């Protein structure tokens, strides 16, 4: 299963359907991105844009009855994960790829001490002795900055605060030194001062272990401070991808532009820019550009007939806008 070739993660043309009352309905319309070894990619978008479905698809964690990967490739270090059996995939989960979620309490078993839970993970994937697994668990608890690791290893999840619980989850996630860590809104339930600590820890671990991180968040600030490259999602598509500096400094897609302009931190008194309308409902997508009905730059002839492809802009930048090049967008931040 494991290879020595580390090429990172490549997701190509991922199409995912979810079950609705009227049958299967497409929610991801061909999502593509890459994460190099040791790199952090930020996936940002508003609720319902498909960012969590994308994250869950990588480890095939979506419930089989309500979601399916229709087509596309998910290649990690040269191996296509979509082609693996459930049994093979179980070995990848937690070993090469780990995932942390928004609410650590639901991911931890309340009936076992955190030390036992981390040790179990190590034993399952590394086949070491009980004593050795135990020793590594304490080491990991120390590694993620939890004070008094020996004593804390004997505590149950309810004895930890939200931030400390997320540290436990991170300890478990890095226990087998994965090459890819998927962090889905890892700090959304936490206070801002605790968020700063957790994000700091992730940055530090990412660098030390040369771990690739897929950081999923609705918060542009979280992405800005932690990802060198980013992708903006809207209605199941990546509408703009590239380096953080390019995208935040000079957005080329009207959605990214509008998102940046609606931030309260941009206000100097006065009114905020908002985006009119709502995300198109599943199964009732517009014929042309998915953002078209809410876009201030919509042009029926250019945007209303067919869905724009992801057009290459400059170095690694992709923008899904038919009017790319003839718009002047001013929403960039310094």
């Amino acid at each position, binding site marked *: 299963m494991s290879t020595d070739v580390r090429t990172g993660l490549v997701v190509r043309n991922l199409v995912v359907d979810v079950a609705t009352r009227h049958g299967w309905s497409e929610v991801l319309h061909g999502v593509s991105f890459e994460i190099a070894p040791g790199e952090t990619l930020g996936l940002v978008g*508003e*609720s319902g844009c498909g960012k969590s479905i994308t994250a869950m698809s990588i480890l095939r964690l979506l419930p089989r009855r309500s979601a399916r990967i229709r087509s596309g490739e998910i290649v990690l270090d040269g191996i296509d994960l979509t082609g693996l059996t459930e049994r093979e995939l179980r070995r990848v989960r937690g070993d090469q790829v780990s995932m942390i979620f928004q609410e650590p309490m639901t991911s931890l078993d309340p009936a076992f001490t955190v030390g036992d839970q981390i040790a179990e993970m190590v034993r399952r994937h590394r086949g070491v002795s009980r004593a050795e697994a135990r020793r590594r668990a304490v080491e990991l608890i120390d590694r993620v*900055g939890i*004070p008094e690791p020996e004593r804390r290893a004997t505590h149950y999840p309810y004895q930890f*605060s939200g*931030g*400390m619980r997320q540290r436990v989850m991170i300890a478990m996630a890095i226990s087998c030194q994965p090459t890819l860590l998927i962090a889905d809104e890892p700090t959304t339930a936490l*206070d*801002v*001062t*605790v*968020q*700063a*600590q957790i*994000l*700091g820890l992730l940055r530090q671990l990412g660098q030390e272990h040369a771990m690739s991180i897929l950081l999923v968040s*609705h*918060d*542009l*600030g*979280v992405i*800005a*401070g932690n990802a060198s490259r980013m992708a903006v999602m809207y209605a199941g598509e990546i509408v703009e991808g590239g380096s*953080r*500096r*390019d995208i*935040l*400094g*000079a957005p080329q897609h009207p959605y990214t532009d*509008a*998102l*940046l302009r*609606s*931030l*309260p*931190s941009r*206000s100097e*008194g006065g*009114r*905020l*820019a*908002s*985006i*009119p309308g*709502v995300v198109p409902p599943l199964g009732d997508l517009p014929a042309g550009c998915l953002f078209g009905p809410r876009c201030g730059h919509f042009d029926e002839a250019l945007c209303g007939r067919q869905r724009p492809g992801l057009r290459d802009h400059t170095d690694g930048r992709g923008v899904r806008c038919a009017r790319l090049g003839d718009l002047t967008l001013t929403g*960039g*931040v*310094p």
Partner: protein
Amino acid sequence: MTTAEPDSVLSVTGLSKTFRTGRGRRRHEVRAVVEAACRIGRGETFGLVGESGSGKSTLARLVSRLIEPDSGTIMLGGTEFSALAGSELRAARRHVQMVFQDPYSSLDPSWTVGDIVAEPIRVHERVGTAERGERVVELLRSVELDGDVAGRYPHEFSGGQRQRIALARALALSPQLIICDEAVSALDVSTQAAVLNLLSDLQRERGLAYLFISHDLAVVRHIADRVAVMYRGSIVEVGQARTVSDHPLHPYSQLLRDSVPVIAADPPVPPLVAPARRTGAAEAGCPFVDRCPAALDVCSHVMPPLAETSRGHWVACHAVELQVRTPLEESRA
């Protein structure tokens, strides 16, 4: 800042609340709000920021008398709201309304939007069905919804629209004060912006005052005129929203400001913040002492009072007081 000025909508002094749970050895006390004081003027937005457990929602519940304080006074205009009981209390409640965080649980799913918005009118006023219906339509229009949504149910609406419905209900009795408890926190930024704009418009049109509670410093900085920062039950800093957000003086407010992720193309490297050493609720002394980089000996014994460091800017910190006082006294000498 503790005297009730004639034009104030709300004036709170010495408000405290301790929650007690368990018995005997399992007895546990949480000092949720400690000696809180604030004043909100007519047409003013007063922001309240703090982390979870800081007591900001408890303060909101005390102010609206959803829960009873252990001590303290709450003045609504010229009326001592905290002294009212029975029918007088019920009548006075119309002046303070609330909008909560979760637009999915604060609206009864089995009621139509029209019934939800009409309920306060039905409870507090004797008006005919026809007039009530007209007022509901008017209220819905004032929050930029079509009057004909009255017959529909909450599940048919998005989060932002539901928050507009909750706002229409809060406006039904023309209150002087609306308490927004994390009212925009669950919304996406683009929707949040529209609701924040609506709140500003309604304030201008109706002279409303808001007590705006949020964990989000950027949102409070945008909407509030003045802001108070709460930490473990105590208000540690009060002042103009811009001043407190951009140039906070209290070490906790500074930590809060530094923790907010900066949205920039080239963001500064965020500071590495040490986790809190949990010591439980401090009985005496400053609640922030165990995390404070500027702590003095006195801080663990004596709770610093709110002191005015410049006009309208109040800080509860021994270290800040020392800094502010010293040059003053030197210049006098």
